[in-house]
């Protein structure tokens, strides 16, 4: 088939295919993680991003390397998109010493100073005040970085959401609030939890410009995020995006999803798959061929496999690691001298 020179959302073919690859990588990485979890290689809680790939890819693509990203506990994808390697993320899931957090954090705690990925937070909405403070630091020191913070539809019911929007708006802080509304906070359907069925009035209440976006269409997400980044980087203060999406798997690996019907999930998977939708756009616009998708997918599968192999071969932390990294000066013990 002929490859068109026309662009989608102002993106070149190379950029579009890169976005497609990233979506495939997130999907295949999570599938591999699920497999390793089932094999007992990964423990604890693990929350998969499958179904929500368009949100992360669309939002993080417009960011610069020196911009900062924070996310909830469903953050493997954000970590990869911000530039962390699949190896260091997978090794962290395995609790290995080559993990980004030396195996001390786990699935919910991905971090990299180098690429500006600042967690992974296991407390719902706790990342919002922290992100607001990171944005405050950028403003304080006169840097034009933006901070993008991701959270779910459950987080907006926490007071921290409102407190953060208010302060960010009041002080015009360069922070972008991204609500990934995947319809359920654990098992609680959003319509049972929200008195108002949209985040726009809540954002308006704090004077924060906001948009609702179809989170299954990566190009729409990308365009909205690009507008948000421009607005925020120019010093006009925070923006909120309510991005409607759906997680294809349970809340965590141990969730039997009793609260929604099999048919509902199947309907989303078959008709609203963000990767399928993007591929359809690309084909229709003549920007890619089926073989491009197959190539990307094969590469994603290989990278995920290699990450698992890397994690498997990495060592567990030494017992001495138990007592390091508590304090900066390693004064870990309760007592100053006696217990050392």
């Amino acid at each position, binding site marked *: 088939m002929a490859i068109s020179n026309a662009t989608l959302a102002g993106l070149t073919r190379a950029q579009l295919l890169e976005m497609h690859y990233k979506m495939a990588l997130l999907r295949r990485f999570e599938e591999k993680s699920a497999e390793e979890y089932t094999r007992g290689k990964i423990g604890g809680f693990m929350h998969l991003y499958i179904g929500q790939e368009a949100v992360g890819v669309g939002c993080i693509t417009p960011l610069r390397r020196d911009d900062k990203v924070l996310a909830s506990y469903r953050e493997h994808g954000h970590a990869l998109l911000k530039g962390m390697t699949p190896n260091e993320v997978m090794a962290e899931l395995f609790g290995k010493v080559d*993990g*980004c*957090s*030396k*195996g*001390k*954090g786990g699935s919910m*705690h991905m*971090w*990299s*100073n180098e690429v500006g990925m*600042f*967690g*992974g*937070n*296991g*407390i719902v909405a*706790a990342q*919002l*005040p*922290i*992100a*607001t*403070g*990171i*944005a*405050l*630091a*950028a403003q*304080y*020191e006169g840097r034009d970085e933006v901070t993008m913070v991701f959270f779910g539809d459950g987080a907006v019911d926490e*007071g*921290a959401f409102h*407190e*953060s929007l*208010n*302060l960010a708006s*009041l002080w015009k802080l360069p922070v972008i609030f991204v609500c990934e509304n995947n319809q359920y906070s654990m098992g609680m359907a959003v319509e049972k939890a929200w008195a108002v069925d949209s985040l726009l009035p809540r954002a308006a209440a704090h004077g924060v410009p906001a948009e609702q976006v179809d989170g299954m269409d990566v190009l729409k997400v990308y365009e909205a995020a690009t507008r948000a980044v421009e607005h925020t980087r120019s010093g006009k203060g925070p923006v909120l995006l309510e991005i409607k999406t759906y997680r294809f798997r349970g809340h965590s690996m141990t969730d039997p999803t009793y609260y929604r019907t099999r048919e509902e999930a199947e309907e989303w998977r078959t008709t609203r798959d963000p990767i399928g939708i993007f591929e359809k756009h690309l084909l229709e616009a003549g920007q890619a061929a089926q073989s491009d998708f197959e190539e990307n997918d094969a590469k994603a599968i290989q990278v995920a496999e290699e990450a698992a192999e890397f994690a498997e071969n990495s060592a567990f932390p030494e017992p001495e690691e138990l007592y*390091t*990294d*508590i*304090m*900066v*000066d390693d*004064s*870990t*013990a*309760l*007592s*100053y*001298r*006696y*217990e050392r």
Partner: protein
Amino acid sequence: MRTVTFRDALREAIREEMARDERVFIMGEDIAGYGGTYAVTKGLIEEFGEKRVRDTPLAEEIFTGAGIGAALMGLRPIVEIMTINFSLLASDQIINSAAKMRYMFGGQPAVPIVFRMTVGGGAQRGAQHSQMLESFYAHIPGLKVAIPATPYDAKGMLKSAIRDPNPVLFFEHELLYNVKGEIPDEGEEYTLPLDRGDIKREGQHVTILSFSRMVHVCLQAAEDLAKEGIEAEVIDLRSVRPIDIDLILDSVKKTNRVVVAEEGWKYYGTGQGLSALIYEHGFDYLDAPIQHIAGADVPMPYSKPLERLAVPRKEDVVNAARRIVPAALVRG
């Protein structure tokens, strides 16, 4: 040397550190225009401006969390949380974020932040405004908890806290703000460690361990005891995490008797923790059971006569020491 109040000593520490380091800023409720609920930050807004002296909305979780975020980026925030009672609204950020981030992210981030807040009772503020609660935070690995009793210690320790690369909780007893004491002259720079106790009075018959306002009560008790020939060694812990256990054990080895005196509740708190440490590491040196004086195990009452009963008095400390120091020892 010159004499200043505890409040002025704190303000000097903040002002000096702000002048020394552009990264230091302070934020909290009513710290700028109002001058601080307890007037600690009075005048700072005129000197340093709105960028570095920031009034925040009345929302503890956000300004605490935002302080943590700013600290992660290398700034040196001082967050004033008015009182420890209100810090409970922000305790998730302190306990789950500030204390844990360095560890759970494998040593990558640092959180150089100071949370200042008032503690304590005795001013008829009622149950919700009269709590010590220092042990609540001292329980948590990843935090430092400083709780000075004198203007000299307050200034030197607050300066260290601001320079410390870790999260430090800095507890100021409400009834200490007007207490006066000597500090070095202006321009004479000094800092004090955040991991050392201090012997406020030397003695050989009994060790009295205390912190915050109770140190002053214990020093008065020691005066009374001295009249009876009992020489008490009064140790001010100054920090409750980390705790200077060696200083304590050295004293126990000398006196063989211990009174622990604190204003907060008795059970599961700092005093019991200390007693357990002494029993664990210094049992063989003890000649008598540790005596533990603490606040009444009730929510703080408002009415003055009831409140007096709830807060430990000098007589309680004196009697505790008398119970374990035999007359024969004193005569000898």
